[in-house]
């Protein structure tokens, strides 16, 4: 089999779709970690966002109370709100109550995993599909050879995810809010002395992280897969946390990590579909192996936020 059979345009398009939930969730986690909060509960927040977003769309479309676009926007709004609430809860636990972040995150994950499944069983029953975000047909662009297939045939949330990359980078690097986030994560004492409320900033970033995690879940349940099933995310939230480390807490490289991971995953699916004779286990492990190897050889000039996982205690 030739390289042209393996590296098709569809593989790149597939990688872009696969990367979407990771980009949402990892960008959100980047905000939280940049301010010093390690949120290991991302996967639970994604699941809650995925379920509630799906359920809102399901109800609206079933009752035909809303037009399809309106029902989808409602789904996004619900996922954002639920994600924000879970983010607030995480902030309350780790900022106000100063609980150990690694452990409270696992608790939040378990809670989200269990509750999303419970509500699904009670309110929906068996998997049902909704009419999710349709793929957008751009005039002219979609019909372009190769480029059209790779870039101009996705649903709205895919573009939103990628648009958030420069926006996040701008917010973090070039705004006062971004400066406050970095200050709080790097040197909370100094930030505090300068009159920045460490707690308020961390509440804000963790809530943003929760909202984006909720949106990540919704991108699966109402845009890419268009249904919900128990544990729909299958651990993607944990991979998203790993990708934040991969990207050295910078939005562009975090997104690059998500793309690399997703590209290898798309590639291994393609290689199996066209019938390469390699054990499927090795194909499945490829994205994980290559992500580690890539990081080994990458040059790293980043610095971990010094206050990461450390609750802030005002010195007396």
């Amino acid at each position, binding site marked *: 089999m030739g390289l042209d059979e393996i590296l098709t345009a569809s593989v790149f398009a597939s990688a872009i779709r696969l990367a979407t939930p990771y980009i949402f969730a990892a960008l959100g986690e980047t905000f939280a970690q940049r301010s010093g909060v390690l949120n290991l509960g991302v996967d639970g927040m994604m699941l809650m966002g995925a379920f509630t977003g799906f359920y809102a769309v399901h109800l609206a479309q079933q009752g035909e109370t809303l037009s399809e676009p309106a029902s989808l926007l409602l789904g996004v709004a619900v996922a954002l709100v639920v994600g924000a609430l879970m983010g607030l809860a995480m902030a309350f636990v780790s900022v106000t109550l100063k609980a150990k972040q690694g*452990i409270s995150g*696992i*608790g939040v994950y*378990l809670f989200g995993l*269990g509750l999303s499944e419970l509500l699904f069983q009670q309110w929906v029953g068996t998997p049902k599909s909704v009419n999710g975000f349709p793929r957008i047909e751009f005039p002219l662009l979609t019909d372009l050879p190769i480029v059209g297939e790779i870039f101009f045939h996705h649903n709205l949330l895919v573009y939103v995810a990628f648009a958030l990359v420069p926006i996040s980078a701008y917010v973090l690097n070039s705004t006062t809010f971004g400066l406050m986030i970095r200050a709080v994560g790097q040197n909370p004492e100094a930030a505090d002395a300068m009159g920045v409320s460490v707690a308020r900033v961390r509440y804000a970033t963790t809530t943003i992280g929760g909202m984006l995690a909720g949106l990540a879940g919704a991108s699966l349940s109402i845009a890419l897969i268009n249904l919900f099933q128990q544990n729909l995310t299958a651990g993607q939230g944990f991979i998203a946390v790993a990708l934040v480390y991969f990207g050295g807490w910078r939005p562009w490289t975090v997104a690059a990590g998500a793309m690399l991971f997703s590209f290898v995953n798309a590639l291994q699916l393609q290689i199996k579909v066209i019938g390469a004779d390699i054990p499927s286990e090795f194909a499945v*492990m490829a994205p994980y192996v290559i992500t580690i190897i890539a990081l080994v050889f990458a040059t790293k000039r980043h610095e971990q936020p010094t206050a990461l996982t450390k609750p802030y205690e005002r010195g007396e």
Partner: protein
Amino acid sequence: MNKASGNSQLALAGRLNRLIDFAPVLIALLLALLVASVLLLALNANPLEAYDFMLKGAVGSENATAETLVKATPILFVGIGITIAFRGGMINIGGEGQMIVGALAGVTIALVMGEMRIPPELAKERGAFDVFIVACSLVGGFLAGALYGGLAGFLKAYFDVNEILSTIMLNQIAVQMMNFLLNGILLDPAEAGFNNIPKTARLVTAAQLPRLSLPIGDPHLFDRTRLHWGLIIAIALAVVIYIFLWRTSWGYRIRAVGENQRASSYAGINVRRQMMFSMFLAGGFAGLAGVVQVLGLQYRLQTDGSPAGFTGAAGFNGIVAALFGGLNPLGAIPAAAFFGGLLVGAQKMQRELGVPASLITAVNGLIVVFVVSSEIFIIQRSKRRVSLQETPEGLDEAEETG
């Protein structure tokens, strides 16, 4: 007030204080159960009945208690390892993968050595040889897990690859490796065929970790249960690691690096080596958890394709147990037992009341969040206590409030 009686009063107050320290934890637990009650009521289940079943399922009978301890054993092993890693400033999310790798190595050694024939003239040494097989398997499992954990430490120390990232990735790699090997060279010869189950052959009795019963009562306590020697090994190692961390210079160096890398470096400690070493030990303990599950309980390694199918998520629960245990190996013992009871009891509740398994998962999450959040109240109390105990007047006050 003379000095002696002051001391004894201090000791009494200290003990009282430590008891009261548990109060916030208990209140947090009750609050979590209260929230869970709302969910139970929504599902038309009687919460009191539910918690009664939970308690019965955890400690209501000899067998239930044994199962709680069985469940706690791998959590404790992992928890000890996580404690070392955390003390060394490393966050090890890779317990699942390290358990799997440890189990793979251990079961391979046990299978191969179990098949060995010893010369007839040494037949009376059979018992010693059996112990040797088990010991080799345990050591092999430890080393394999240690190398797998150590790999993450190595990548961190020399290539600046964050250990959270590498251990999350290594978990997935380990499970695929297990699926590959159990469906390949380690496949039970009796399973060769079209719809084989990916699992190894059953270990011969000689290669098994014996079941454990205590010489209390007749029949002996825990006779005819699945409790095995893994528990004793885990508890013994918890003590060993406690001594290691706080009474040896090696342990001191690990903790020094965890406290402050830069200062340790100035003090002449090889920080990179300590990072690798603490991850090596953490992985080793997770590896032991894995091999003990096979040798003591399942007598073979099999996979359903997911990591948790084999590990029971002990690699994650061990993190929680380590932190609940105050990052002290001895504290991890009751913490692991508590989680074992919680998990086993919750399943009983599910069976008896027919409530969905997902509710149990959610409640476990609630308990973790509530209990970990209660710690602040303990810390505040102990801070106040330190300042109070400096003055005799403070002591009186402490007694009154206690």
